[in-house]
């Protein structure tokens, strides 16, 4: 991400940033990261 955009996000009102954190948390719950080395399913495929 470009530094300019990151700076712009950093200067947003705190309440708006908290709303974005909530969105990030929802995304993390919807698309959880699989641990390294963990197979795609029980058969390892």
């Amino acid at each position: 991400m470009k530094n300019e955009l990151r700076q712009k996000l950093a200067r947003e009102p705190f309440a708006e940033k908290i709303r974005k954190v909530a969105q990030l948390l929802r995304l993390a719950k919807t698309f959880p990261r699989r641990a390294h080395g963990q197979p795609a399913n029980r058969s390892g495929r």
Partner: protein
Amino acid sequence: MNPPSDNLPLADVLRAANGLVAAGLIEDWALGGALAAIYYVEPFTTYDADIFFIPTDKSLTAGIPGIYAHLQAQGWQVEREHLLLHGFPVQFLAAHGLTEEAVREAERMDYEGVPAKIFRAEHIIAIAAGVGRAKDKARIEQIQQQADVDKTYLADVLQRHKLKLPTP
């Protein structure tokens, strides 16, 4: 207490912390940790809120049982080291040394109509320098890049607490 929503229940958390002061259970408090860092930098994923408090009760337990009892009576739930409000984990941490100074000198703010205090960027940097994990080093770099840091104030905090910034 507001019903659960799509947003984090931060206003209710801050209101509850003010309630602990009103109940005489704590002397003062401030928001620290990742959510305090987000006040100064771009938003990132974090799973809990850290409330640092100065205990009224100076015994070893720092009044934690009283705080838990007070919040549980208001519907909060306990899960290991966290108290949960609408499923959102909050950690109440007794402040001492550098974190006590961070609470006392925290910036006053208003969050959705709730008066609150939040750690200064310089204290977040100093605390991260003291912890020193990879993510703390990244946080220091991010705050220095994106926030208006008072370098003189930061140098004073670091010097008084015998801390050094990590080398890049």
